[in-house]
Structure formats: structure tokens, C-alpha cells
């Protein structure tokens, strides 16, 4: 079942087109990653999905209902969190969440606030004003706000930015648990490709306002045919570098190790040739292309154009 359908969504700011005729959908319980370089149109898209930016063209439907005509009903089941927006900074965490809980008319408000404080480890900062929080604490408060109404669809803009690795892992686990337990659907933007690969079922890559890929993370990574071959050279580092230069292969040297980027199908040939020229290596590791490679390649293409 689809919880979100976006058709021909377009946003123009004057003569500039920020989002250009994009269409996609989100299934129930699905986690969708929205990726793209800065200025690609991700935030503009998210704002339109939240109803805080009017599209120039196109339709947004949640649960089969048009966002414009069923705004109140839809927004009761929706929420969002962004690292780039802040809550009123003079109000305490408790006060901010109390106001938000009234806006959503949360039943048994006190109990829900306690639950949220527990889940997002807010007890110690419960009575602190927002301006006194660290970036990581602020992110946790934003996430608490996003989950306060137990939404069916959640839009998260960089949900784990500013969190330490342990807290980020905790939040990722929490998101997956929410999906598993309550079938929550999520759209998330992130610059942490490993995170996207770990938790997203599907990824949409946006660039220059248009969707240039819509697939599962593995397939996007596979579309990059360049692998990274790392060799710990025992003898012949200079010869290896010369070989790479002669054959136009990109490489990076760290101490006695060299990482050579080559086409997946040419790895065997590479290894055979460098042995033929007398290079001896003690260790080898081959890294398959990742989503990050895909992202970097797309960003590079964009720079070249």
C-alpha cells in the first residue's frame, strides 16, 4: 500500500527551477533515502511534502488524499525533524514538547511526554532551554518532537547529524524498530552514505531538481563498475605507480600501500600485469563500489557538466 504519491512535482523560484517534474511514491513501512549534492532540490522537495512550501505544479497525495485539500487530516499523521531547524530557543525542552503535544492533541499527554523523554534520553536536559543544548542534544530533541504524535509518515532531514557514533547507531536502531513495530514509513536525507545503505530500502538520487536514479542502494552501487584494489606492496611500489600512470588508472598511496581504482572486470588483468613487471605484494583487499562511490561519481559528473 502506498502512503505517499508524488506526481509531476515542480517548484520554480522566479526563472530558476529548483524541482523539475519529479514523481515517486513511498510504500507503507518503507524507508526511502533522498540523496543529492547540496542545492540539488532535496530540501525544497521535503518542504513541499510537508506543506510549508507551495509547489508550482504537481500533486502530493498521502494515504490517497490530496495534501492541499486534506491538510489537517494528513498532517496529524505526519511529522518531521531537521538538523537545520530549531525550536524556540528560550523555551525548555519540556515546554517545547508540551506545546507540540497540544498542537497534535496527544491523548494521555503526560504519559507520552515521559515515554519520549525516556526513548530519546532527554531526562537530564528536560528543563534546559534549547539555547543551552549541545548540537547532539538538539538533534535528540528534534527527533523526540518528530515522534511525539506517533506519525505514520516521517520526514527526516539529516537525522543523525551532530550525533556521536554511539548515539547515531542508537537512533538508527530506533528508526528500524519503529518501522518494524509500527510500520512507520520514512523519507530521510543524509550525507552519511553508510547510514543510507544500512537503513534505506530504496534511494532516490536528485540532482539539478530532477530524479536521476530511483533504486535499491545495492543496485545504485553496482551501477558503478569501479572497484578499489588495495595492495600492501612488499617490493615495486614505484613500478606500480608508473604502471598506473601509463595506463591512466587513478590511485592513492599511503605508506607502502596503494589503492588503485579500476574496472571490476579488469582486476584480474591488473594483478597479473603487476606480477609480470616484478611487483611483490603482501596483502590485497578489494572493495566493491559503495553508495558513496555512486554519489561521488554523480557529483563529479555534475561538476564536469
Amino acid at each position: 500500500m502506498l502512503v505517499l504519491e508524488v506526481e509531476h512535482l515542480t517548484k520554480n523560484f522566479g526563472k530558476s527551477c529548483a524541482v523539475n517534474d519529479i514523481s515517486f511514491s513511498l510504500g507503507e513501512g518503507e524507508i526511502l533515502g533522498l540523496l543529492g549534492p547540496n542545492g540539488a532540490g532535496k530540501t525544497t522537495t521535503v518542504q513541499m511534502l510537508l506543506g510549508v512550501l507551495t509547489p508550482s505544479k504537481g500533486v502530493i497525495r498521502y494515504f490517497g488524499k490530496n495534501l492541499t485539500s486534506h491538510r489537517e487530516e494528513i498532517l496529524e499523521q505526519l511529522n518531521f525533524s531537521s538538523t537545520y531547524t530549531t525550536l524556540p530557543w528560550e523555551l525548555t525542552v519540556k515546554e517545547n514538547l508540551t506545546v507540540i503535544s497540544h498542537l497534535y492533541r496527544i491523548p494521555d499527554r503526560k504519559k507520552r511526554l515521559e515515554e519520549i523523554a525516556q526513548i530519546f534520553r532527554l531526562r537530564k536536559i528536560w528543563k534546559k532551554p534549547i539555547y543551552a543544548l549541545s548540537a547532539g542534544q538538539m538533534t535528540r530533541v528534534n527527533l523526540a518532537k518528530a515522534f511525539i504524535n506517533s506519525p505514520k509518515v516521517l520526514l527526516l532531514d539529516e537525522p543523525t547529524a551532530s550525533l556521536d557514533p554511539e548515539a547515531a547507531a542508537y537512533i538508527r536502531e530506533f528508526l528500524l524498530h519503529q518501522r518494524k513495530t509500527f510500520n512507520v514509513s520514512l523519507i530521510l536525507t543524509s550525507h552519511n552514505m553508510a547510514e543510507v545503505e544500512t537503513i534505506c530500502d530504496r534511494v532516490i538520487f536528485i540532482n539539478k531538481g530532477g530524479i536521476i536514479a530511483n533504486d535499491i542502494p545495492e543496485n545504485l552501487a553496482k551501477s558503478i563498475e569501479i572497484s578499489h584494489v588495495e595492495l600492501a606492496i612488499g617490493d615495486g611500489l614505484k613500478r606500480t605507480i608508473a604502471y598506473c600512470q601509463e595506463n591512466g588508472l587513478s590511485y592513492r598511496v599511503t605508506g607502502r600501500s596503494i589503492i588503485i581504482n579500476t574496472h571490476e572486470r579488469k582486476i584480474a588483468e591488473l594483478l597479473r600485469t603487476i606480477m609480470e613487471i616484478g611487483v611483490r605484494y603482501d596483502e590485497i583487499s578489494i572493495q566493491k563500489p559503495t553508495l558513496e562511490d555512486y554519489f561521488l561519481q554523480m557529483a563529479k559528473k555534475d561538476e564536469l557538466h
Partner: protein
Amino acid sequence: MSLHRIFAIVLRQLYTFRKNLDRLTDVFYWPLVDLLIWGLTGVSIAKQAGNIPSLPLMIISGAVFWLIVWRGAGEITVSTVIEVSDKNLINLFVTPLKFWEWTAALVVLSVMKALLTFAVGVGIAFFLYRLNLLIYGWYLFPFLATLLVNGWCVGFFVGGIILRYGMKSRNLAFTAVQVLAPFVAIFYPASILPHWAQLISSALPASYVFESMRQFIASGTLDPQKLYIAGLLSMLYLPLSLLFLHKSFQKTLKRGLVGVH
């Protein structure tokens, strides 16, 4: 309209109010300063000119009634400035909150603060000068309602400008309503204004309240027609100012609420 969402916005502003005790100046400090200055001026002129015992009441009533217009506008504009400067509009409008609920909450806040200001003004006038501002009896209701609505109209209009142009127009929140002060004839009859200013004065609902107030003090009665005109003008300006605020909000949505600051 949902009462719990209106309550949420009122609560949010009350939390902010509690943290900014300087905002109490609106309710206590300015009424006290105004009533001291204008009250003493009135008493002094009355003594020097002789035989105008009603002058202090006229002047103090004018000062207190003007505070109602000021608070009516100020609470709406200042609350809008707070949301814009806190970049909080996006947090509010990603919830089911409707634009008209937000507006209603600002009106509730302005009524609360205006009534509190009026009560403080009445108290100060009584304790400092033994003047009874409740002397207008039932007429106080149309007086206060007209003054408040006049304030809201200015507040909605300025609020719309703040939504459109953001914090660079924030000073208007505190000053715009003062533009009306010379024209509404707070302390003097509108007839002493130059002709062009009288035309402006006649288009402002608050002018009729101040004229009626003076007439009541002078004769113990007033011309109800003036209050009808004030009511009609209010009914004309209120929807227009609300429409402007709403259009400004719609325009802001076209730019995105994230971009309002």
C-alpha cells in the same frame, strides 16, 4: 477551528512571556509612565486654567484607551516577530495548525493583555488621581471593542508586512500603530486638526471613541451614531486587514516558511 491548537499557541507565547519579564513593561510600566506624565499634565493644566475639573479624566481616559489600541496591535505584531525571529513558523505549520487558528490565538493573547493593561490603568488612575475610568458604564464595551479591533487591524496589516519582509521590518511591530496617534485625537478634539488630517481622522474607528469619550465626560451622554460609524468602519477594516495577513501568509508559503527570517 480547534481550541486545543489555539490553546497551544497561546501557551507557547505565555511561556515566552514568562521568560521575558521585560515584556511586562507593556502591561505595567507604560501604563504607569503614561498615567504619571499625562495625569500630572492634566491636573496641572486644570489648576492653571481653572474650572475644568473634567480635564484630568479626559486626558487619563485618552491615555488608557490609547494603550488598548497599542496592545491590540502590539500583541499581534510582537508575537509574529517572535515566531519569525525564532524561525518557528515551520515547526508550527508542519502540524495540523491552521492559519486561522494561529490568528485566533494572537487575538486571544491581545485580548488578554489589553484587558490586563486596562485593569492596571483603571487601578493606577484611581489610586493616583481618584479618577474612576469605569464611569462610562456599558459604553465601555463598545469603546474597548472598537479600540481593540482598530488595534488588530493595524496588527494584522503590520503582521502581514513582517511575514512578507521578515526581520528587516521588525521595527514596525513596535512603532507602526503610533502613526495613527495624532489622527485619532486622543487628547484633543478632531476639529482642531487641519482639514486633510480631519479626513484621515474620520476614517479611523478609534477617533469616534475618543470623541464620544470626551462628549460623555462633558455632557453625561453621547451620540450613538458615532459608535455605529466606528462599528461599521471596524467591520470594513477587519476583514481587509485579515485578508492582507492571509495573502501575505500565502505569499510566504510560495517562498517557503523556512525562508522567513
